[in-house]
């Protein structure tokens, strides 16, 4: 593979094989504003990929993803791989896996759903179908396929 013009990171996370154009959604999930001020975030858009044709890549220094964020990425970018880098070496590499239940990542699009009222409750969805992904609100049972529009 051709070398990319981005410096390697010492410690952090590389999210590779993100579907073309979806890296900005992935950044939203990671929460760039919450990162250490000295961390570098690199986003590579529209890179040739043997597997996907075109792909995006996100590299974030000094951060390891929480399981909840991994679940959210699985929803947006089901083809992604996540590599944990320590001391410039890949210490762990895994393919994201969509769980049975998604908590807190997507808002229910039904305005009358109890999760959109003033209640002490997080949104929660069951994966009703996997290909393509369709979610069912665990509260009001509304089916959601356009969840990119409803990220929490």
């Amino acid at each position, binding site marked *: 593979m051709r070398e990319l013009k981005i410096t390697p990171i010492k410690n952090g996370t590389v999210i590779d094989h993100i579907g073309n154009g979806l890296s900005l959604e992935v950044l939203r999930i990671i929460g760039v504003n919450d990162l250490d001020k000295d961390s570098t975030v690199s986003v590579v858009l529209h890179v040739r990929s043997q597997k996907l044709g075109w792909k995006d890549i996100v590299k974030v220094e000094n951060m390891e993803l929480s399981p909840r964020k991994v679940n959210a990425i699985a929803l947006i970018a089901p083809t992604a791989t996540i590599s944990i880098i320590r001391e410039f070496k890949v210490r762990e590499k895994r393919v994201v896996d969509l769980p049975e239940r998604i908590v807190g990542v997507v808002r*229910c699009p*039904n305005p*009358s*759903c*109890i*999760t959109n*009222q*003033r*209640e*002490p*409750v997080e949104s929660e969805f069951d994966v009703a179908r996997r290909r393509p992904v369709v979610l069912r*609100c*665990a*509260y*009001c*049972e*509304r*089916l959601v396929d356009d969840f990119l529009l409803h990220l929490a």
Partner: protein
Amino acid sequence: MGLKGRDVISIRDLSREDIEEVLKGTRRMIPYAEGSKVGQQLAGKLLMLAFLEPSTRTRLSFETAMQRLGGRTASITDPAASSVKKGESLYDTTRMLSAYGDAIVLRHPNEGAGRLAAQASDKPVINAGDGAGQHPSQTLLDLATMQEAFGTLTGLRVVLLGDLRYGRTVHSLAHALGVFGAELVLASPSSLALPEDVREDLDHLGAKVTEVDQLHQAVREADVLYVTRIQRERFADESEYAKVAGSYRVDSALLSGAKPRLIVMHPLPRTTEIAPEVDGSPHAAYFRQAFLGVPTRMALLSLILTGKAV
């Protein structure tokens, strides 16, 4: 696993066996509901009724069911006069109710409220309607009505007529009929057609579903004609309501070509969907259906509170 101690929020929470258990219990409860037998099965039990949206029939039938079996009820019937008005969350209200009573019956204007209440409560919660969402005890009494008339649900040809989009009773009913292998025929104005997700659910169950334009033809071949009310409160626009409200009506002429055993059902209250002349015909089953709400809720409450319905 039996229904004792369980929440009944959506008809999806109930397996076919659970539903059959309720239907069997309903038959046994009929003499108690009629008053020809006196029951004490629920003596000492207190049911909390939280009706945060108007309801007559459902609230009254739960109260009646409880009292006919020797139990008691305590209720919130006017949210304007309760802590809900002061901005208390449903979560907190439910925690309080579950500390006071043995089970909770909830009606609420927001979809998913029943599920939230079930999480907040450590006592069983029965969803008695959440917004345009689920109303499982209505579905159970609908099934009980068909079961009583035909002895089975499997293979029945059921026409669902009217507001199939907003009518909450219809979505749960369609699912349950799909589980039991009934055949569904959909007849509605196009603006009130069954939502796509409900259709997909039925396809997933392998249910046979057809849509018709010609109501006469559909009625001739039907075992059950299930009529729903077009709910004015679900329309933002009065002229839109008026346009669809008059678009269907069940009367003697429509029923003249029907099978002798056809039953006409309606969750009530009706407005103009069924002409009063139908009330005296052998097809009219809607008042029997309303009555069966009591023994159905007796069976459900007994199963949830004591594990048996005898």
